[in-house]
């Protein structure tokens, strides 16, 4: 009797334990259940058709824009590259602590990717030659673009859409896009209220090498600049950026090309603030019209310049905040 009771008790405990496990798994299976459970075919940025037997649940992403897309679509990734850096730079899509680190963004660990039992891996075109085929031999891979300087917002949507289709979260993607549109509309109205429509902004980040400051302008082709454009703020940088991210290079002397614009920049406390630390006593800097008129503004830390709709919403808030300043 005693033994039977013990067995019963243990079984009950085990059942509860298993049931408890089941509940932690539930949200993902629910999310999948809302989409069609049947096979999915998506066409990625390479133009390749990727066939999946069912919408992917266990997904890894090597680049942070892919990770952010997944998180904001409600699919917590299983593997993420450089989790520490992600936490430092991307606050729009917080990880819940479950994803496993798969190494650097350029060279994700194939061992770890192989051991996670994945349905899908999302990479950008910056993954090393040769690795793509090896990952693809085991798990379906979707390649998204890191950026598209021709039409940055459409480029961002293209990445979001293909991931949404592959994970069966298209309703969520539509919702994200309409929320973002909403945010742009209200943002633009606020900009209008502040009387800043049509004003020029120059957004950049900067880094220090051995005491001299290198500036990285976000030109017209950059995602952030496109978002500012939607708000009715014009990008002031005269030079052309690179074809993927719309980034250029400038030095302090080159800043004299800018008129009295709003000079916005982003920095990270982890790396310091070159504008405040290095240029404070520089005569060129002090002579710049926007420095004299106090139009220099540092954005909050940890907004990812190459992220998805959620990051870009943060930029809308930051821009409006900067105008009110």
């Amino acid at each position: 009797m005693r033994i039977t009771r013990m067995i019963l008790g243990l079984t009950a405990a085990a059942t509860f334990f298993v049931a408890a496990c089941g509940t932690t798994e539930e949200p993902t299976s629910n999310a999948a259940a809302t989409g069609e459970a049947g096979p999915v075919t998506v066409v990625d940025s390479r133009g390749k058709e990727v066939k999946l037997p069912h919408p992917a649940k266990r997904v890894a992403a090597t680049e942070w824009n892919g990770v952010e897309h997944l998180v904001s679509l409600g699919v917590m990734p299983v593997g993420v590259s450089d989790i520490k850096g992600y936490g430092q730079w991307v606050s729009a899509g917080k990880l819940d602590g479950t994803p496993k680190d798969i190494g650097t963004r350029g060279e994700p660990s194939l061992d770890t990717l192989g051991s996670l039992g994945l349905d899908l891996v999302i990479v950008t075109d910056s993954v090393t030659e040769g690795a793509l085929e090896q990952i693809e031999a085991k798990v379906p891979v979707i390649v998204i673009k890191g950026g598209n300087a021709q039409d940055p917002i459409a480029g961002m949507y293209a990445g979001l859409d293909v991931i949404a289709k592959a994970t069966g979260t298209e309703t969520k993607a539509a919702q994200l896009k309409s929320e973002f549109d909403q945010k742009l509309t209200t943002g633009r109205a606020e900009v209008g209220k502040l009387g800043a429509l049509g004003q020029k902004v120059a957004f950049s980040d900067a880094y220090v090498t051995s005491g001299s400051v290198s500036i990285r302008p976000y030109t017209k082709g950059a995602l952030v600049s496109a978002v500012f454009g939607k708000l009715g703020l014009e990008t002031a940088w005269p030079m052309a950026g690179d074809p993927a991210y719309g980034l250029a290079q400038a030095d302090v002397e080159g800043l004299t090309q800018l008129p009295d614009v709003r000079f916005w920049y982003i920095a990270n406390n982890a790396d310091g603030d070159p504008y405040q630390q290095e240029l404070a006593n520089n005569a060129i800097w002090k002579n710049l019209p926007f420095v004299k008129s106090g139009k220099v503004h540092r954005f909050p830390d940890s907004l990812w310049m190459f992220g998805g709709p959620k990051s870009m919403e943060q930029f809308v808030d930051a821009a409006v905040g900067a105008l009110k300043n």
Partner: protein
Amino acid sequence: MLTLTKPGPPAVRRRGRAALLGTGLAALLLLGSAVHLTQGTASVDALDVLRLLFRGASGDTTAVVVESRLPRLLSALLVGAALGVAGSVLQSVSRNILASPDTLAVNAGAHLSVVAVAAFGVSLPLLGAAGVAFAGGLAAAVFVLALSGTGGTGIVRLVLAGTAIALALISVTQVLLLLYAQETRGLFAWGEGSLEQNGLAGVRTLGPLVGLALAALLGLARRLDLVHVGDDHARTLGVHVGRVRFAAIGLAVLLAAAAVTLAGPIGFVGLAAPALARLLAPVVPGLHRHAALIPFSAALGAVLLLGADVLLRAIISPQRALEVPTGVVTTILGAIFLIVLARTARITSATAEPPAAGARSGVSAIRYRVVLVVLALATVGVAVGAVLLGDAKLLLGDVVNWLSGQAGPLVTGVLDTRVPRVVAALLAGAALALGGALTQAVARNPLAEPGMIGVVGGAGLGAVTVITLVSGVGFWTLTGAAGLGAALAMAVVFAVAARGGFTSERLVLIGFGVHAATQAVVTLLITLSDPWNETKALTWLGGSTYGRTLTHLVPMALVLVLTAPVLVRMRRELDLLALDDETPRVLGVPVVRSRLLLLTCAVLLTGAAVAGIGVLTFVGLVAPHAARAIVGSRHSRLLPAAALLGAILVCVADTVGRTVIAPGQLPAGLMTAIIGAPYFVWLLYRHRRGSALSR
């Protein structure tokens, strides 16, 4: 090494030439400076600068000129002069035309310390950064000098130790750049030397230091003349040779470190400027005296650097020039110059050392067999360990299951990607070691590693060119491009070195120039085409087994199979060729033809390895040396031992790179340098002690 050109007897009639040269250089400097001031990203042109002179300019112009243009100009002059003098003094003291801040690891040490500080998230003000770079450069130089001694006997050893340590330091730097890509943004470009300045603070801080060091060296000029002529000669005249040498080297390092701090490691100015001065010495009387040589080297260095900067910004606009470090241009110009110099310079092989740092004359047959068996067992052990270790640790049972096709999906997934990497490492290591052993024997020079004669650099350049110009290239295209690059580099090196039947010093000197030029062009390609994708380029250049599949192994296996019978047949010729020029000729060996055939084998081996896993610079140098130390210098024994040692070295390096920071990874090439350099340094050290005892 080269003997420096002896000056002709001073003729009174030609005395005016020194004055003429001085006036010419001064005019060049003035003209260059004037053009330099008008170049920049702000719309401040020549007229504005002129107006500034007559006090009619706006505050804006003044600020631009004072805070940006003038600092850049002054730092170009200062850095050029400092490097020119540093190189000149180092060359005199070591009587070695290859001695320079680049080859003594001063630049590499300073760069590493700056990157390390940035990587660990410390943002330093200029003076702090200056101190850090200075300490790093000084530490590296002191280490090199302590290893090789300043006694004048270690001329080859000085460059050997310096190059080895520089390679290791550069590798550590690249590891940091890869691991801390975010924190060290921009330091990749700075690593090639950039004149960007942020105000006059840098020049104002380091200018006086450079001035003081220059003055002190001028004070030593007379004694340097005597030391340069010969130790014994100087001693009989009452000069304390050791003390003079020590002071001169210290001051030269000080100058080089100051230059690195101000502008990053600017390549080749420290080599080209003094070499140019020496080239002029037979024509211009009095130039061989240090009282004249030092100021002329300074002026030539300044002219070279300023000229490179003016040229760069005149050809591509100042806006685009922001992306290209000036050091890249000086390196390309300097390398071309070095090649021309090597063509015309008179070379004697009297001072060359045989390629036998720490060599045994021979071991008994039994002992050799035991060693070979042990090495073979070690290779197998290392290979098995490499298969088991990695991000995911496996057990032998997993491997057995995998081999019999019974493994689960996880183990299969891991092993399917890992086994090709292990095999790639083993094959590449063997190929590179054989290539190195052949090159060292044929060139009769311990420095003659395939990397050193420009073949590895050429292969790398070919591959990176294809990666840059065409997106998503396949492996066979890449292999073809790497092979083509290696062949082209070889053709250039050999065509130029052909004069005088491939004299070994000339070969190495020209190869060294080609290697530096290819590296600079690679940097140029990356910074111009894809400045925000440093990781990809660094990964490829670092020599990585990452993402290797079975197809990648085919070229290496093919070349090894093809060259093996040739090497077996040529083993005796190799022994003879490694001796001297005369013996093989007397014994009826067709010297030029054998050399060409063997070097073609070396190029094929190296090219295949580079195409397979990227640029691995250290294996070809270390593995043959180690093999020679263990089994002696007979090639029938040396080649198998070197191949096994190379395979072990690359395989261990790869495994360590895959394991230590998992799930992140380090390229095998960086790990071979970090593992190989200390061993090599130990070899040098042991040899030094040995030779001291035998004396």
